[in-house]
């Protein structure tokens, strides 16, 4: 807080630091990404091929799309750690419908079903007033066990053309998953910045009581946010299961919640709610995916990747703490 007082007095140096802190996310992440790509390109010839760079971008969509819903959720002051299991459950149920009802209806069904699961989470969180992370912790295990029970722990193989197209197809030479991801981000950005709903989300996350008093239907906002989480998880589940050509109830989405939360927090959205940064989440997803890809291609043991991403998450949160101390804003 001392620092804040110095800024008030108008010391030139502290003002510069403050400006740096407030712009932190908008230029550090792209810079970090470029540095990452340069380093790995030097280290690994396999990394710097166009094929690898494009296909890694395609894999980014898997994390980036899920990060949209999570960004809304964290801005709203909540958490959803059931997303990995939800991803697995909707993927196995949706893809098992394929032979029966065909491609387009199955994809629609997957999205609706995923939104419904998110809706259920939202109802539990709002109507019982249980902290979101613990409700979704319970749900995480319930969804995963339903996925196991439904498939009897055997993967579902996917042959439907339409479903596979979403993850692997190309439109005018650009992978469809990348187009879909950008489309999702544009829609989400409009929703967050150009609609009353976006304002409500940020208002609830910043100060719940104030939001209630100013007449916002907080419960409804929260339920819609959780439903949105579900919807984007539905999209991500179609993308990843199409990429892999199968939906495995045990493997799919293991540790996914972790990557998605890392992406959102690294992207500059503050835990505890309030304003956030949607494009930051996008860049952070790129950083995470390329980091994993690069570590893999430079033959780093895959177990070290766990460690690396865990450290990135702690680093990201600690950095945002430093930033907010410097700016003298609300504590997390």
């Amino acid at each position, binding site marked *: 807080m001392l620092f804040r007082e110095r800024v008030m007095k108008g010391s030139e140096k502290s003002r510069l630091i403050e400006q740096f802190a407030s712009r932190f996310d908008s230029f550090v992440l792209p810079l970090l990404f470029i540095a990452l790509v340069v380093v790995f390109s030097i280290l690994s010839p396999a990394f710097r091929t166009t094929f690898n760079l494009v296909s890694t971008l395609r894999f980014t969509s898997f994390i980036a799309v899920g990060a949209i819903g999570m960004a809304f959720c964290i801005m709203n002051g909540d958490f959803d750690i059931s997303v990995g299991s939800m991803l697995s459950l909707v993927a196995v149920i949706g893809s098992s419908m394929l032979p029966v009802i065909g491609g387009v209806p199955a994809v629609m069904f997957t999205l609706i079903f995923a939104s419904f699961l998110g809706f259920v989470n939202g109802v539990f969180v709002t109507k019982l007033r*249980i902290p979101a992370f613990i409700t979704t912790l*319970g749900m995480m295990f*319930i969804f995963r066990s339903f996925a196991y029970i439904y498939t009897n722990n055997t993967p579902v193989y996917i042959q439907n053309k339409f479903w596979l197209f979403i993850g692997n197809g190309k439109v005018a030479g650009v992978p469809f998953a990348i187009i879909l991801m950008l489309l999702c981000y544009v829609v989400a950005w409009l929703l967050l910045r150009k609609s009353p709903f976006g304002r409500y989300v940020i208002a609830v996350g910043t100060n719940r009581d104030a939001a209630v008093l100013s007449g916002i239907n907080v419960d409804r906002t929260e339920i819609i946010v959780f439903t949105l989480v579900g919807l984007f998880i539905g999209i991500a589940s179609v993308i990843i299961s199409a990429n892999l050509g199968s939906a495995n109830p045990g493997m799919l989405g293991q540790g996914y919640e972790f990557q998605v*939360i890392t992406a959102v927090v690294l992207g500059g959205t503050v835990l505890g709610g309030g304003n956030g940064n949607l494009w930051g989440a996008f860049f952070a997803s790129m950083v995470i995916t390329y980091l994993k890809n690069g570590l893999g291609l430079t033959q780093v043991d895959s*177990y070290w990747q766990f*460690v690396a991403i865990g450290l990135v*998450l*702690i680093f990201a949160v*600690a950095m945002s703490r430093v930033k907010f101390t410097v700016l003298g804003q609300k504590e997390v």
Partner: protein
Amino acid sequence: MVKFLKLYEKIGIFIFLVAGAIFLSFASPHFLQGDTLFNVVAQGTYGAIVGFGMTLAITSGGFDLSVGAVMALTSVFLSILIPFIGIPLAILVSLIVASFVGFINGLIITKLKVNPLITTLAMMTIIRGVALIVAGGRQIVIHQKVFMELGTGKTLGIPNPIYIMVILFVIFYFILYHTPFGRHISAVGSNESAARISGLNVDLIKIAVFGLVSFTAGVAGTIRTSQTLIGIPTMAPGFVLVAITVTILGGTSLAGGRGNLWGTLFAGIFISMIYYGLNIIGVQIFYQMLSVGIVLILALFIDGIRNRYLETLKAKGLKV
């Protein structure tokens, strides 16, 4: 009604436990035989032991998701160390390593001011990674059969893990309810800033609590390793759910400040009874996870209703 709620908070789980026991004794003729009963209790020891630590953490307003990973790390260390330095020393070193993880958790949470949930979520991944790296991604078999006595042996007809659970229960009970440190834990959980202002060293208390949680996870990991005689780097993937369910089902409030160790003890045994019941029906292992998840949601449901009711009372200006 308030009296009823208070009573429920204290002994609610005990009623569940008795109801469950009556149900099971009708469902299975073997349930009431001494050996089966002891086995059910012995199977409940992991949940209860880690639940003791988790009870302290939740009472202090914290939370630890890394317990399953710490169990795995302990298991790996044990299996590597036992051939070199003998069983007692290996257990000691492994428990120190486990507690050290909690110490790091506490440092990150208090000194870097990172949210406990995120810290332990990240540490969960990191520690799993470390366990896999140390073990080289393999399971390591322990050849010293004596070690098995710890987890499967019996003393005076009672399985050894039960003794360990009771000893830890007594220690934790003493710590939480009969030492200044225990009062401080509750104080930090009820109102952290008030605790800080009244001169408590909040950071130190939190670090100690996270150290204790990891220590209990280490003990549970040791027992489980001795039962299988294998060091498993991927041990106990869903265990954190059990530990948290046991704590909340036992009546410890998520809001912090009020821990219920008796409840945790009984809830640990209750979960084990559910497993036993599912075994009788003969369903697949996935249903175990499902049932624990559902029990957690139910426990939260009750906790939520209770808090809501108490809030209404407070709003009316009644003393609760």
